[in-house]
């Protein structure tokens, strides 16, 4: 068993990064995630593992530093909160286009605009549908506990390198600021250039040697046929992700008439709501997508064949509900799909969700 600690979600991101052999972190302060960089700076990992930590001048710079470092085959990351992620959109698109592995953490806060520093899930569309320009997707992991904040750093890098694609941990201020018991992972050595090459091929700009052609990291293909070829390659990766990487969890769905679909902190709330609803004799279950892209379409479609209705519970105006609708529609099911949520940094309570189940799902 690994070391047990009581830690904040944000602190755990930092600790997990050091332990999983991350080579570098580049970031810019923004609430509610500044503890990530603060923890890293206090830990001084450059002495311990050689990990580089740098406060950049902006999120624009951070993500481009990630681009540069990732282009040399290093395991690098950044973290920010919603407004900062918007600024990074250009860089993330370039990273996806150039097929670089990296990890981006978004500890969401309410928007639009400067918004609020309170937790939110309003960046679901931005994260799962690309976010920047062009046809691309991120691998999006949605932790629901501090333990998963820890586990998904390693998993995120693992998937990022497997697909040479940026991975995102999409979390929110609630999980970032919350402390829970966490079992930390063991230290993994940082990967050598040779290991990266034997695992993922020779693509990184590590310095041209006489035994190979020079490598170029770019997303530029002026010739349309070449561009389309690159687009196709990306789409093939996304199809493979949909086949191999869908992760989700169900809770009391076996005999459920109604199923809540919720991710991250909303899923934690819904788990309680399920308990409360069951105590009232209502047969309610919960499906928690762990990967938001690839989205668990199939399990939802399967459930759609036997349940009466779904309710997406989100801390936004109803974004993931569209993906639930699509999945249910694909199953040609007549199950109703509805949404309940709060916005602006307000977290719905388990009781509110139960009321919504009764009013929006059962009575409707």
């Amino acid at each position, binding site marked *: 068993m690994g070391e047990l600690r*009581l830690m904040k979600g944000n602190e755990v991101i930092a600790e997990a990064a050091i332990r999983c052999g991350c080579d570098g972190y580049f970031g810019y302060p923004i609430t509610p995630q500044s503890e990530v960089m603060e923890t890293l700076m206090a830990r001084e990992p450059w002495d311990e593992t050689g990990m580089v930590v740098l406060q950049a001048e902006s999120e624009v710079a951070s993500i481009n530093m990630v681009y540069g470092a990732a282009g040399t085959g290093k395991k690098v990351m950044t973290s920010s909160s919603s407004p900062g992620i918007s600024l990074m959109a250009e860089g993330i698109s370039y990273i996806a286009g150039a097929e670089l592995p990296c990890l981006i953490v978004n500890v969401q806060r309410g928007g639009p605009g400067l918004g609020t*520093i309170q937790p939110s899930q309003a960046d679901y569309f931005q994260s799962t549908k690309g976010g920047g320009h062009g046809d691309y997707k991120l691998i999006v992991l949605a932790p629901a506990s501090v333990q998963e904040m820890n586990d998904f750093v390693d998993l995120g890098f693992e998937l990022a390198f497997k697909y040479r694609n940026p991975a995102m941990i999409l979390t929110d201020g609630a999980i970032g600021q919350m*402390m*829970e018991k966490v079992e930390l992972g063991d230290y993994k050595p940082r990967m050598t250039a040779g290991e990266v090459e034997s695992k993922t091929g020779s693509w990184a700009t590590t310095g041209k040697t006489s035994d190979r052609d020079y490598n170029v990291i770019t997303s530029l293909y002026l010739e349309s046929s070449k561009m389309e070829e690159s687009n196709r390659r990306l789409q093939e990766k996304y199809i493979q992700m949909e086949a191999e990487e869908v992760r989700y969890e169900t809770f009391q769905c076996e005999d459920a008439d109604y199923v809540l679909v919720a991710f991250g902190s909303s899923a*934690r709330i819904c*788990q309680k709501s399920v308990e409360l609803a069951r105590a009232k004799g209502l047969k309610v279950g919960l499906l928690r997508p762990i990967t938001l892209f690839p989205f668990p379409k199939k399990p939802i479609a399967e459930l759609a064949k036997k349940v009466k209705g779904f309710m997406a519970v989100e801390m936004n105006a109803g974004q993931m509900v569209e993906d639930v609708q699509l999945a249910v529609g694909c199953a040609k099911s007549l199950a109703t799909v509805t949404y309940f949520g709060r916005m602006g940094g307000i977290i719905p309570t388990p009781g509110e969700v139960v009321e919504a189940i009764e009013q929006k799902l059962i009575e409707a």
Partner: protein
Amino acid sequence: MTEEIIIAGFGGQGVLSMGKILAYSGVMQDQEVTWFPSYGPEMRGGTANVTVIMSDNRISSPILHEFDTAIILNQQSMDKFEKTVKAGGVLLYDPNGIVHPPTRTDINVYKIEGTKIAADLGNVKTFNMVVLGAYLKAKPVVKMESIKKGLEKSLPERHHKLIPLNLQAIDAGQEKLETVNLVS
């Protein structure tokens, strides 16, 4: 066993650190714990509260609308959280600064003169430990040895010399807990 607690008062009263020590004690005796704070600028001088959940099972929602126990340390928090205690639950408060004491008769109400006791101990900063002691008397959810370990884990090394004083404050709180009988 699952214990869902809200601790609420002013920023600076040690609300968050009391919750943290409690949560760490839970970790020390192998329980699942969640510590969920109010965060942001409201904490500077304004009200601060933290939800602490300790359980033998996986913990669901960190956000709750009702609690097994409310520890209330100012009037605003009384107004907000008295009504959120589950029937049969516990409300513990420090009467210092409370204008409208609790009135519910379906819960167990306790009182601790935390401010006064801490001042008598010669260190007003031990206030939160006095209150913690009182709570543990009302609801012994964690063992004292876990609290000791929790203190060691949550206090930075340079503050470890203060642990005996903190334990003394916890003892004082346990001794001086008062039961307020409102049950009609």
